[in-house]
């Protein structure tokens, strides 16, 4: 572990070499017979992060751990859990880290409200900028003495 990373690069490389190059993960024997329940399981596992191949969802990963979670999710669904109960069950075991779609909490306030605030601030700044342009002094600046002289000369002798 170093100051920045939670991941040992070697471990990551191993993960890439071992798993990520293989095809899409769900194996036929894992699937639930009921298509509606299977669709729910797929949707749920797509929102869980594989803790081995960290840039893949559990639904995509070929790591054995991801397979375990896939099977676990399907077991919970068969046991009659709601989607929230399944997610809570997985989070209780593997921690918040597995959630690709983290809920609003103290440290995700910025994540969920930041972009909205940015948009409001951006639009407000744009509005203020254009309004300021439109309110900029429209009255012409008084002529400098040199310019007044020039105007006077032109009026007196238009050909000069």
């Amino acid at each position: 572990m170093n100051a920045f990373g939670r991941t040992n690069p070697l471990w990551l490389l191993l993960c890439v070499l071992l798993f990520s190059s293989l095809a899409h993960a769900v194996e036929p024997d894992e699937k639930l017979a009921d298509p509606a329940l299977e669709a729910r399981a797929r949707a749920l596992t797509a929102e869980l992060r594989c803790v081995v191949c960290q840039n893949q969802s559990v639904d995509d990963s070929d790591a054995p751990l991801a397979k375990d979670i896939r099977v676990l999710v399907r077991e919970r669904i068969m046991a009659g859990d709601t989607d929230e109960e399944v997610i809570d069950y997985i989070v209780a075991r593997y921690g918040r880290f597995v959630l690709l779609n983290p809920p609003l909490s103290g440290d995700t306030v910025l994540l969920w409200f930041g972009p909205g605030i940015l948009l409001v601030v951006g639009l407000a700044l744009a509005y203020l900028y254009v309004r300021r342009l439109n309110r900029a002094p429209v009255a012409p600046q008084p002529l400098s003495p040199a310019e007044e002289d020039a105007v006077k000369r032109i009026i007196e002798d238009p050909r000069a």
Partner: protein
Amino acid sequence: MIAEVGLFSLVLAFTLAVAQATVPLYGAAVGDGRLMAFARSSAIGQLLFVAFAFGSLTAAFVVSDFSVSLVAQHSHSAKPLMYKISGVWGNHEGSMLLWVLILAIFGGAVAAFARNLPDTLVARVLAVQGMIGAGFLAFILFTSNPFARLDPAPVNGNGLNPLLQDPGLATHPPFLYLGYVGFSMAFSFAVAALIEGRVDPAWARWVRPWTLAAWAFLTMGIMLGSLWAYYELGWGGWWFWDPVENASLMPWLAGTALLHSAIVVEKRDALKRWTILLAILTFTLSLIGTFLVRSGVISSVHSFASDPARGVFILGLLVATTGGALTLYAIRAPQMKLGNLFAFASRETSLILNNVFLVVTCGAIFIGTFLPLFVQISNGDQLSVGAPVYNFFFVPLAIVLMALMAIGPLLSWKRGNIAAALFRLKVAAVAALGVAAGTLLLQAGWAAIAFAVAAWLLVGSVWVIVERMNLSGGLGAAWARAAGLPRSAWGMVVAHAGVAVCAIGIASMSVWTAETVTLLKAGQAASVAGYEVRLLSVRDEQGPNYTAKVGRFAVSIGGAQIDEMIAEKRVYPNPGSETTEAALRVRPLDVLYVTLGQGHPDGVWTVRMYHHPLVVFIWGGAVIMVLGGLLSLSDRRLRVGAPRRAAA
């Protein structure tokens, strides 16, 4: 020997870069023409030295000189020549050398081609480029020497990760770097303008071709990476919101905003402070991209050569570059004039809105990418931000932006008429409603909005040209009128249409993808989206540097065979790993995608088949955007060069 000469050449390039960073600046300050002229010759000298070093490393890879440590680690004598060459940048040290080479190419291009620019501006631009070059050359020399020797030299090398042995990925990094590094030109022009204390329409015109070229390269680079992921990773995903993908998308969004705001500076002499800031931010985001990939700070499939010590060095470069530029900005920006007047309903305002939406999108991605890192450092907690979050923000922002994109070009400068613009878009509105109704019938749900907006943008963009052609006057005359339009107008229309095409592909992939995962024996079949796919046989085959299981499939519709497809599972012994070579049946309107999965006893195979309607539009749209950029780049006013700047 060649490695030592290459290293020596890099040292010379570094020394020259330090001189280039200082001498011309002094020359410009005191008005000494000879010292300023040194900028051009040193930029060309730097290009020659860096190119020589890069050539030396390439030569070491081509002849498989395993006494060079980098070659031994990343190459293998059995590798095809193309991948020996692409192996040069398939690793940390070599890719940094490529980065510096491209920087030197841009610097050399300014020195050779920028003839109409004032001497002081050229001197200052090249000096800033020299600073960036010196920083990155120092990074290479002190932390990432690509020429380090190995004693004793191994008999053979470790080979290149086979995932990277692919034409798409061989060309992806160079294009990406041409984009990233290309934005250094916008940065250098911005800093030079801050030093000179002068930003005007002429400046915007000088900087435009460089920004446009960098943008086109970056678009191409991102598109190649996405295409590669689609066919190589084996399940038809084309975008993963991976931190490193985000790292390339952020400068793209900021760079796109920059292209548009620079138009306001050029045409209307307004929005100058913002444009300068955006130029600085865009290159900063490019540096952050380099930092993300090279430090391995955030876990990613891309960090194949991550090292925190190097990360700290790049972070230092980042702080120095951006911090320096922003300090200069804080001192100089308040002196810049506010700019010319325009009304709320005007082309200028529409371009400002474009900037707001692009930058907010970029900001949302930035927060998502870096918040987990920030949370971990501050309270040690672990947080993941994945595709569901990014899609939640990206999709609505992109849809609003696309809806506005059709209107903006129809507003006139200074004071436009929104009602009139909307009235001119009536054909586009009809098209959008028609598409919405049609896709709702096909049960596209919410994606119907995306399809409708894409149709609105596509028809609305093309309509600008159709209107100007005035078809009532006969086809020949109309064509002549269309051909007479400036290339930049065509470029805009084509690029905007490309965005629409890309959006259609994305929306289609998100709702209409069909997939079947099943177990098949030779002779058995399964179906996906009306196609019947039969496994004919699975054979062993021997490739140049791999062995493969080769599955043959027959594709039929309604019992009549229409095609045969071949999918492979390859095993590469050096280094030992597997890849999936999916079978793709590519048609303009859909792709049938079949992969051979795990083998089971008794000749049973896991087979995955996908139907991806309109997926080609995603990359087709990106290529159309690039074409738009190139068209705009070929505009006469950029080739002829800007008129002489008015006297100060």
